[in-house]
């Protein structure tokens, strides 16, 4: 199991790396889907089967498909600026990334976070009880947000005279 985790982590990191360096968006999306699959299996290993399945259904099955759809519909041409990002484009990313990695590093070397605990978190009934009882209001807010997104997308996509 642990070996499988490391293997999947490797796959996720490598495919994400390919994704962000790929010049063509369609290839980038395919690499990203690979990364999402390995992440989904990692979630399953971390005893979160529901999140794993929703990662595949919504991320790989809906969001990335939407990306593909808009890439195919708009056919963006690859620009010269995009092909060769100069050092000016890289330094903010390097700076922020360094700061972030440093923060995580200090967090980790400052001591063991906690002792590993074993509890079954894969129970779907308990999960749904928690979701709809304790976080019921949040569910409503998220559904409202989805409704707004629907209306907004309809407004943007409507035909203009």
């Amino acid at each position, binding site marked *: 199991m642990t070996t499988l985790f490391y293997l999947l982590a490797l796959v996720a990191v490598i495919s994400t790396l390919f994704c962000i360096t790929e010049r063509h968006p369609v290839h980038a999306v395919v690499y990203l889907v690979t990364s999402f699959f390995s*992440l989904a299996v990692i979630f399953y290993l971390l005893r*979160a089967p529901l999140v794993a399945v929703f990662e595949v259904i919504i991320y790989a099955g809906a969001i990335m498909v939407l990306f593909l759809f*808009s890439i195919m519909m*708009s056919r*963006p041409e690859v*620009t010269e600026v995009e092909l060769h990002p100069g050092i000016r484009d890289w330094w903010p990313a390097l700076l922020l990334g360094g700061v*972030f990695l440093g923060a995580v590093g200090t967090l980790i070397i400052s001591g063991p976070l906690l002792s590993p*605990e074993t509890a079954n978190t894969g129970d779907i009934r308990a999960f749904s009880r928690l979701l709809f009882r304790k976080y019921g209001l*949040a569910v409503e807010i998220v559904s409202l947000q989805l409704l707004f997104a629907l209306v907004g997308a309809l407004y*943007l996509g409507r035909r203009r005279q």
Partner: protein
Amino acid sequence: MIVPLEQVLILAAVIFVMGLACLLVRRGNLIMMLVGIEIMLNAAILAFVGGSAAWGKMDGQVFALFIIAMTSAEVSLALAMVVYLHRRRKTVNSDDFSGMKG
């Protein structure tokens, strides 16, 4: 817990930084910027799920689910806007959208 929480967090951090780099470097293509955001959100989900597994509580998974729902709303709007902008200006380079009077 199959691996210590630290290793999950390191994986999440590495993926997050890659997403950040994608967002900041590839400004020539709005779609790639959105891809970067997706990568970062996934790293956040990974951190939440890892924490949920480590503490044995499900709240982390609930939040992961909320992030997924929120992302789908965000992506549908953002992509609708990208397609709309591309239809108007025939470009997806973010630096080209600098005038206020479109």
